[in-house]
């Protein structure tokens, strides 16, 4: 329950329902009867955080234990923070209303680089020192997880430990150790030493980083018994791992307000720009039966009328048709809609289209990523123009009139012809509509192009690449716009300043911790929100800390350079990434994992198992 003090400020803020807790299926326990209190923090607004599947899985998994009580914490929006600070109300967890400082373990999920300042702000709002070295007691221990943890160095000074890989695997071991240390009255140093021995736990303070004169890393030296390489954890069998039977159902409308089900983890495609496609390997599929049963149970416990089948590439799920048949058996009767995001254009079958037209119709979105075949080959997108146009044709015949196309600007080897190619491809889709005799009558077509700026990420074949400068990206955006000649095509793009900053932190090192702290102390937070983004303050922060951001973004690295994340092992062999990087320059593609194993090495961290490998061997 929230405090009287908080109740007083609720009438003064927007959408107070975000700060009350008490949603259906939220878990309330007796705090005197648990051994460990865990605050799971999402460093963004309630609406964003409550849409995240990971928090639902880990919340429910932790609360399945009798000795642990896991609660949720989100970043209060600007108006709420102002009221809280004015009245000295510390940041509290939604279930108990207790301040964050009373918790034993504080976990942050780092989903995107631009949420980093919110982590500091949330700790500070709770009266907790932001730097790990200033938190001397055993508790609270601050742990980070999520995709950004594959290079957590720009946040290394703020966290006590990082958890690498699948959270379901590792959380219990961290809980057990901390409970043990609390009972034995261990010091924080003793806890950290032991934590470093848990597979998948990275304790940043146990590593010294030495730099060369040119600013690159010379050496990473582990202290004491800390391992030289920390290897991420993987869930071996998705059918056996914990999946919630209940989702918390928010009162306030959140971004993804529906049942979400992860049907496979990892990706067979190996698109060279895509970090998720590599760091979630090896590929593991969940059985259609498990998904069907769990979806039905979730619909019953939440009352949701929509299921989203989530994964990096949903049409690559081998049992998709079987699953759709099973689901449609009951969803049609129960008026539940099924959404299939992340479909590919090259295996979008007639049958799948048939299933889709039986559920409520939403928009169609495809991601060619690049405008010309040469560039699509360089990034290993493995989609041809003919496949794309034939899918467009099928969708128009199927009654769709709006298509959304996702592209990226600033990809390695990109030329201005490739940029113009985006507009040309969109034009061909428009033409496809008008040349189609089966098109929906009396309607026009709308092709929306959404253009992101490419940011090179760790553990991808492009991790050594220089990122396009802000000016170059703006020129490319203008070039694209000048090539669009019809109102049937609309173009939207990301702010390039935001992509630039994302680029700095994606491949940054520990020296950036000072920059994050400076920027936060001077007002930066909610950086991923256009209205809150203070680019000038960030530039000032780099200057004051004596750091050139272009060192991280615009510099092409040698394959030999020691990268800030080289002591972390996500199962992807560096030699594989180098090979892929070289192939990109030859515009040479690599077939997907089911056609031929490319030898990324990730199966080795899963006892040699990979669902794509099994497929090709059958």
């Amino acid at each position, binding site marked *: 329950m929230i405090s009287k003090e908080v109740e007083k400020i609720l009438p003064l803020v927007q959408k107070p*329902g975000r700060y009350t807790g*008490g949603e259906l299926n939220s878990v309330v326990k007796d705090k005197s009867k648990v051994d460990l209190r865990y605050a799971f923090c999402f460093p963004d607004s309630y609406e964003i955080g409550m849409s995240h599947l990971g928090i639902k899985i880990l919340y429910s998994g932790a609360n399945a234990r009798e000795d642990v009580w896991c609660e949720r914490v989100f970043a209060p929006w600007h108006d709420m923070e102002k009221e809280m600070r004015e009245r000295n109300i510390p940041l509290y967890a939604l279930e108990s209303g207790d301040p964050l400082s009373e918790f034993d373990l504080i976990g942050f999920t780092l989903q995107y680089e631009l949420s980093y300042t919110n982590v500091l702000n949330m700790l500070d709002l709770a009266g907790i020192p932001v730097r790990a070295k200033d938190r001397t007691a055993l508790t609270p221990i601050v742990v980070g997880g999520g995709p950004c943890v594959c290079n957590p160095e720009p946040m290394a000074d703020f966290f006590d430990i990082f958890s690498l890989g699948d959270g379901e695997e590792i959380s219990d071991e961290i809980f057990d150790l901390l409970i043990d240390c609390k009972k034995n009255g261990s010091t924080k140093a003793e806890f950290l030493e032991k934590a470093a021995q848990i597979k998948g736990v990275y304790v940043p303070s146990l590593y010294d980083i030495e730099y060369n004169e040119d600013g690159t890393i010379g050496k990473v030296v582990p202290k004491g018994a800390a391992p030289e390489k920390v290897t991420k954890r993987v869930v071996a069998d998705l059918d056996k791992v914990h999946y919630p039977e209940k989702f918390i159902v928010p*009162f*306030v409308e959140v971004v993804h307000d529906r049942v979400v089900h992860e049907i496979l983890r990892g990706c067979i495609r190996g698109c060279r720009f895509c970090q998720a496609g590599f760091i979630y390997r090896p590929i593991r599929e969940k059985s259609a039966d498990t998904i069907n049963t769990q979806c039905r149970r979730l619909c019953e416990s939440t*009352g949701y*009328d929509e299921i989203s089948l989530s994964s990096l590439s949903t049409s690559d799920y081998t049992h998709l048709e079987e699953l759709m048949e099973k689901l449609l058996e009951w969803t049609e009767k129960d008026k539940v809609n099924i959404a299939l995001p992340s479909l590919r254009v090259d295996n979008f079958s007639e049958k799948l289209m048939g299933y889709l037209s039986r559920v*409520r119709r939403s928009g169609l979105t495809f991601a060619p990523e690049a405008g010309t075949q040469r560039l699509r080959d360089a990034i290993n997108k493995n989609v041809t123009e003919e496949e794309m146009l034939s899918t467009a044709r099928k969708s128009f015949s199927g009654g769709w009139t709006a298509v959304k196309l996702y592209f990226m600007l600033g990809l390695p080897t990109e030329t201005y012809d490739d940029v113009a190619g985006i507009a040309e491809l969109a034009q061909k889709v428009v033409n496809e509509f008008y040349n189609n005799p089966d098109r929906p009558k009396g309607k026009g077509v709308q092709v929306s192009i959404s253009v992101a700026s490419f940011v090179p990420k760790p553990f991808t074949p492009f991790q050594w690449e220089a990122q396009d400068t802000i000016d170059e990206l703006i020129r490319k955006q203008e070039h694209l716009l000048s090539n669009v000649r019809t109102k049937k095509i609309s173009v939207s793009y990301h702010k390039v300043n935001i992509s630039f900053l994302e680029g700095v932190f994606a491949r940054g090192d520990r020296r950036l911790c000072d920059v994050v702290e400076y920027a936060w102390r001077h007002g930066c937070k909610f950086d991923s929100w256009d209205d809150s983004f203070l680019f000038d303050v960030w530039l000032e922060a780099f200057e004051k800390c004596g750091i050139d951001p272009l060192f991280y973004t615009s510099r092409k690295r040698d394959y030999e350079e020691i990268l800030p994340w080289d002591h972390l092992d996500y199962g992807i062999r560096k030699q594989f990434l180098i090979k892929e990087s070289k192939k990109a320059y030859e515009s040479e593609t690599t077939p997907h994992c089911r056609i031929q194993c490319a030898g990324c090495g990730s199966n080795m961290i899963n006892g040699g198992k990979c669902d794509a490998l099994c497929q090709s061997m059958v």
Partner: protein
Amino acid sequence: MRCVRVWFKKMGMSRYVSHLDLMRAMTRAVRRAKIPLWYTEGFNPHPYITFALPLSLGMESLCESMDMRIEGDSTNEEIFLMLKSSMPPGIEITDVKDPVHDPKKITFGEFDIFFDCEKGTDELVSLIAEMLNSDELIVQKLGKKGRHKVLKDINLIEFIKEYKIGKLGDRVKLTVILPAGSTTNVNPSLLADEIQKRYAEAVTYSIVRKQLLLENAERFE
């Protein structure tokens, strides 16, 4: 297909559930309860669920009602039992009945406004009495002028149908009947805000909607 009127209380933290959020929350509750809903027969079938009169965000209520169309031959008691256990926290089903009046006929609402102040309540009681006994109590109300929103001056005294001031321990309780409905609507927080503004001491308030009334002061059922 028949229509039932579901009565519920919206107390405690659920007062921060907005009208739109409440509609979604109740629709989900009805789905969890597995009540055989009647769906519209159009291109995009959806259940037919309507609420008598939206409640302002932050207000509690003892008299909320929701109409829904159902299939099958479940009795009102059966529907009541099915719904009772599937409500989200803070929303309590009190009854399921056949609708009697058309929600369009709602004309007044009766509200309790509770004032909490740290210093003595007597001064507050006399201030409220003085304010309500005068001929004029002008406040600004957000109204519409064409498509634009504008602030209008209104005299609250003209709209207050009945009131009663009382003390409840260290709280002051003001019961008031104000226009509520689709034609004229006066939010009791306009009055509460004005009292809060004029009182010298710090005071907070909370509002509970107790019942809705027809033009002839008969209770909406």
